[in-house]
């Protein structure tokens, strides 16, 4: 009985194979892309993932970028070339090990075409080798470390792009602001060992020295440190007029609170960078935040104002961080590139060649984005940044723009 049944099943199976082979042949697409193609069935979605910090003390940074992408997807009707967009992802925790874990998960999913991320440069250093090897296009809205787009650096990987500014620019602008606008001649810097902070303080120090200033001390704190008294005591020995610490929360808030109570630093000016542009700085540093300055990208214009209105309608608050517009532009650059390179079949099947997509992103020119007119290069920089300096006041968010003066409304 059993033998007979299995014979019938095999017979049907063989018949089926023969019939399929004889059926009308579809115009098959042969993938010639060196790193492969993604096949998207007629009803399958286009999968874009994110690798952002959406939990922990720096949540605002990644959530804000994700919000920007969600608005961009909604603006495109939720579709690319008639396919729905599937947007999900992983938390990278703004740390190298978080980036490693999230990168491993994402790299294992072959349906992903592009990744929006990472939030922090340390995450990128760990995740990028994995994402690049998986053939994805990565578009970061907030990585700023110069290494990532420096082709001679081991931290540079193919397929990596960013709409955030390169810190070569931010560090130089911060030094210019401190030396020429504030009139500072002696400064000290602190980093936290992260790729972003270390490089940024280095660029600042180089530019500040070139302008004619003196760097009294370049030192560091550890992530998770709460008691800053010993590091501040060593800084006080050089009696700088400004301490530049482009780090994150909560260490930044502890430095803000403890600096003024250190003997010799009562009148020192404090300055951070875009990592400390967050409502949580105001919430955690309390009264000590008064007068604290940060450098951060400056985005203005009618298109941006319209975006802010949409953001407020969708998420119920003003943008909670600074890289929402960069994420919005990043998604749209990827979308435009997909529309350019995707091969559509008559039945609605879509093929996206991965290397061609990377080339198309790199060839982006005259892209009208919220953050300006953008052009990408093969190394990965797409930004056209204007950097401003902002000053915090107790209980007020966002901080006030104080420089460059011609942009103050």
């Amino acid at each position, binding site marked *: 009985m059993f033998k007979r049944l299995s014979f019938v099943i095999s017979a049907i199976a063989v018949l089926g194979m023969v019939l399929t082979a004889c059926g009308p042949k579809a115009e098959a697409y042969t993938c010639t892309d060196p790193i492969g193609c993604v096949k998207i069935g007629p009803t399958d979605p286009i999968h874009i993932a994110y690798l952002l910090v959406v939990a922990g*003390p720096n949540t605002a940074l990644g959530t804000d970028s994700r919000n920007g992408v969600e608005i961009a997807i909604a603006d495109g009707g939720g579709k690319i070339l008639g396919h729905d967009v599937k947007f999900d992802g992983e938390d990278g925790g703004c740390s190298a090990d978080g980036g490693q874990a999230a990168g491993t998960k994402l790299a294992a999913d072959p349906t992903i075409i592009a990744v929006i991320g990472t939030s922090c440069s340390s995450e990128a250093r760990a995740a990028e080798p994995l994402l690049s090897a998986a053939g994805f296009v990565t578009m970061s809205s907030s990585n700023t470390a110069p290494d990532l787009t420096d082709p001679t650096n081991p931290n540079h990987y193919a397929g990596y792009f960013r709409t955030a500014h390169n810190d070569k620019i931010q560090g130089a602008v911060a030094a210019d602001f401190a030396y020429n606008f504030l009139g500072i001649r002696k400064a000290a810097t602190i980093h936290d060992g992260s790729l972003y902070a270390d490089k940024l303080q280095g660029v600042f120090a180089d530019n500040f020295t070139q302008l004619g200033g003196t760097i009294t001390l370049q030192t560091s704190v550890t992530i998770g440190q709460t*008691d800053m008294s*010993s*590091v501040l005591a060593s800084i006080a020995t050089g009696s700088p007029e400004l301490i530049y610490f482009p780090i994150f929360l*909560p260490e930044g*808030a502890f430095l803000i609170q403890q600096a003024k109570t250190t003997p010799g630093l009562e009148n020192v000016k404090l300055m951070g960078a875009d990592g400390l542009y967050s409502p949580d700085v105001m919430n955690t540093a309390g009264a*000590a935040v008064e007068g604290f300055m940060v450098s951060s990208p400056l985005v203005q214009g009618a298109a941006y104002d319209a975006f802010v209105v949409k953001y407020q309608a969708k998420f119920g608050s003003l943008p909670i961080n600074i890289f929402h517009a960069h994420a919005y532009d990043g998604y749209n650059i990827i979308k435009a590139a997909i529309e350019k390179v995707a091969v559509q079949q008559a039945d609605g099947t879509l093929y996206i060649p991965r290397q061609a997509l990377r080339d198309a992103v790199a060839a982006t020119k005259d892209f009208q984005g919220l953050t300006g007119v953008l052009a990408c290069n093969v190394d990965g920089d797409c930004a056209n940044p204007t950097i401003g300096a902002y000053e915090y006041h107790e209980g007020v968010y966002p901080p006030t723009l104080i420089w460059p003066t011609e942009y103050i409304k």
Partner: protein
Amino acid sequence: MLRTWRQRLTITDIFIWVIGLTIAGVAILGTISTLQQGQYSARVWLDLSIKGLALGGVYALIAMGYTMVYGILKMINFAHSEVFMSGPFTTVFVAQGLAKSGFLDRQPVIGLAIILLVSAGVSTLIAILLERIAYRPLRNAPRLVPLITAIGASFFLLYVFRGLYGSGSFGYPAIHALQQSWTFAGIQIYKAQVAVIVGAVVMMLILFGMVQWTKIGKAMRAVSEDKEVAELMGINVDRIIVFTFGVGGASAGAAGVLYILLFPVVNFYMGFFPGIKAFTAAVLGGIGNVPGAFLGAIILGLLESVGPNLFLTGLGVPSPSQLKDAIAFIVLVLILIFRPTGILGERISRGKA
């Protein structure tokens, strides 16, 4: 005499002594060369010492929980760092409410007392629940079982609080009355630092007095000496253990309030480092020993605050402040090499009930 001593000496002993003496030598060399460079004025050292004393006071109060529980149950309560976190993390919302209504500025003393009570209350509640739910059913299990449970309970509490209040950081409102400072001979002393040091000392005295001179303190010491005999003498051991957890929790909650006077930012993982440091302090002073924990904590606080600049600047180490945790733990290793029972000696029950 010399001969027996020589017979007992093993290679391991010599090796350990060499390590210990090398570390001590490096520290002394570093200190001398730092002081010779004269980069820091006496004012800086005094300022750092005051900050270190304040930090030590906070560690001391957290260490109470570890040391008393260890004294009675011979178990390291790894969830104690979360007991410490629960108080100030919950109270931040009370404090923000008090600050918004202006009450904290009008009545800073009553306001602080409310904050202290709420924080200590929450931590006590968590500590007692912890004992009831996680530890009591395992009282007679092998020693490793409650230890692993403690680690599990620690993670459980960590993520419960993350779920309750979110993963962000919250800032405590400024207590303006404590932000002023006095100046003595050119040294600025902040009222908050004084409040922390005085608060820690007063609470330590209360705890010490309670353990030494009250009836329940005597019962605690009896249980820690020998549980079975204590039970035969009519002491309700369960009640004493609950009371010990409660006292440990209350002092952790109070430590939380002192901690936020120094570092007014709270988040769900704020307990981890202070917890480890306090445990180190308890071991340093001799675990199970209340004055020992206090002494260990003060030494640890001072070392952390003064140590990096004093030992390492002279040796030309860049950013010595990054190594402050290393210094704290190296000192622990040194103490354990030269005096394995801690500075004041262990006081723990003989054998586990």
